[in-house]
């Protein structure tokens, strides 16, 4: 059994909305082990993004305990949380959220540069883009890429620094079926090769089919936590994504 990557105990998150309080998470107990490929599902407003934000140290819980990669997030300063995100957590967003004025490879290099990677930064970025089938598009500006290509660049940016944990918030929401399939295969492949832990939220049943473990959130609570007995088959698909 791998070491736990995420441990949450009675995790709650309450947002103030004017005079009202919105309970986004209501006592989440969760353990995610290293190398898991976990899908968070549930209706809109069920707390999927909030939970990802808490695990990614983007936000702080209202109560409860949360430990990521052995570090308790409750006591971390802004700077320490930024350091944790930079060195241990990769993010993939629904809307890609790449830096539009940079090229594909510059977007990937940016993270490595922030990490302080020196001379080998460019070579490492090239390797990651090749691995995701984007070698030929490395010097293209972001607005010259299709949605599927942009999301693969986003994945490349997330995994370039070889984080132990990758969080993806509805990564296939803006992709068509084929590109969604390709992306899921790539993420599975990265997990297999590099031992990364993937947690992603989704509404897409086809995407859920790739998950090894599926947690269903309803109204801020875990309604179901299902681990599949055998992993879904997948193949190496680098470079197969449609333009």
């Amino acid at each position, binding site marked *: 059994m791998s070491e736990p990557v995420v441990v949450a105990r009675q995790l709650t998150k309450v947002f103030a909305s004017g005079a009202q309080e919105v309970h986004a998470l209501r006592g989440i107990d969760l353990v995610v082990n290293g190398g898991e490929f976990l899908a968070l599902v549930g209706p809109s407003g069920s707390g999927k*993004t909030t939970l990802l*934000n808490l695990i*990614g140290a*983007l*936000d702080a819980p209202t109560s409860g305990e949360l430990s990521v990669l052995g570090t308790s997030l409750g006591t971390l300063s*802004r*700077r320490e949380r*930024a*350091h*944790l*995100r*930079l*060195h241990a*957590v*990769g*993010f993939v*967003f*629904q*809307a890609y*959220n790449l*830096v*539009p*004025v*940079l090229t594909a490879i*510059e977007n990937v*290099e*940016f*993270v490595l*540069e*922030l*990490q302080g990677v020196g001379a080998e930064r460019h070579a490492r970025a090239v390797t990651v883009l090749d691995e995701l089938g984007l070698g030929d598009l490395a010097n293209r500006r972001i607005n010259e890429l299709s949605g599927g290509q942009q999301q693969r660049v986003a994945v490349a*940016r*997330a995994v370039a620094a070889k984080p132990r944990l990758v969080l993806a918030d509805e990564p296939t929401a803006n992709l068509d079926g084929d590109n969604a399939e390709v992306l899921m295969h790539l993420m599975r492949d990265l997990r297999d090769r590099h031992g990364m832990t993937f947690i992603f939220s989704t509404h897409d049943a086809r995407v859920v089919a790739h998950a090894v473990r599926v947690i269903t959130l309803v109204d801020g609570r875990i309604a179901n936590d299902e681990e599949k007995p055998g992993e879904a088959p997948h193949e190496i698909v680098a470079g197969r994504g449609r333009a």
Partner: protein
Amino acid sequence: MAWVAGRYAVRSVRRNFRRTSLSIVGIAIGCVLALFMESMNRGRDELFARAATYGGSGHLRVVPAGWRDTRESRMRLADWPRDIAAARALPGVATATPRAHADVLLAMGTHVVPVALTGVDPAIEPATNRLVRTITNGRYLRPDDTGTIVIGQAIADRLGVGPDDQVLASVVGHDGDIAGAMFVVVGIIRTGSTDLDASLAQVPLADMERFTGLRGAGELVLMLSDWRQTDAVRAALAPRLASGDDVMTWAEIFPDFKGHVAQDQATARLVSAIILLVVVLGVTSAQLASVLERRREFAVLSAIGMSGGRMVRLVLVEALALGLAGGGAGLAIGAPIVWQFARSGLDFRAYLGTDYAFAGTLMEPVLYGDFGWWIVPYIFAVAIGATVVASLYPARFAARSDPAVALRVAQ
């Protein structure tokens, strides 16, 4: 700032072409106005220095020790020939001339006028005192003259004398007795200023010594080839002077004059500061709009691990790029304007007339700006300084943004 982050910052500046262009134009206009004010300031400094010095006081004046406190006209230098030789040996000293002063009464018949009579070296004096070059009637003193005098037009009018007339000069001699001497008027000076024309009266230094019974010179007046070297030449000259003699700058001799210059400069710099404040507020507004537009982008940068400090630096590099562009534009616009200002000047004759005098000194009615290599570092320092200051708040805003909130709002 690292390489990719630098490229990101520079390309971000180009992202909104219209806003960036307007910001650059605003910075450039602010820089040009500040440059013009600074050029005027430096020009005014030079104008006052020139007026004060060419009016006869010199850039430096060697005086007897203690003169700076008493300003007593009867005091004489300890060893003026040694002092003048030391001064003339220094690089940067264009001319050095001796003078002696005495408070005398000039009389013609029943008319009496009190004047500060000056004994001069007629061969050198016109080189240090442009006022004595404006002889409108008769001639100036000659080196071989004896018993001659030149006087200002106002004195001549009050006494009712002209060239070849004789005037009686009376003074309290060195022994306390009243001494008198006759001088022949050889020239009338008309400076253009009635005040100055009422105070100018010069005789040869040798006549002054005989007349007052006080031997030697009361001061040495030094003109420098570059007035900006005043303090440096003073420092070099002071230890070479005879014991008991002192050296003063024109600013020390005319403290009111220097105070007026300082007041004018402070006012001009206040105006420059107000101009720059308006520019800073404009750039702050534009930079804040730019940061607000990119809230999601900054949230993403924060999510991928960029620290607040790095984000501040990123925005400041953008400001640096903006400042460089604004400074370059300001230099392109401002340099020809300031060059023309330095060449043609601003003519205040219509407002001041041609005989405007301040603190007993005739002022030129045309103010010339200063133009030189200093404008390049000046304009870039102003542009970059203003832009960086203007970007501090937007930078802090970007760094303090909550990534979770920004991403939630953006989705």
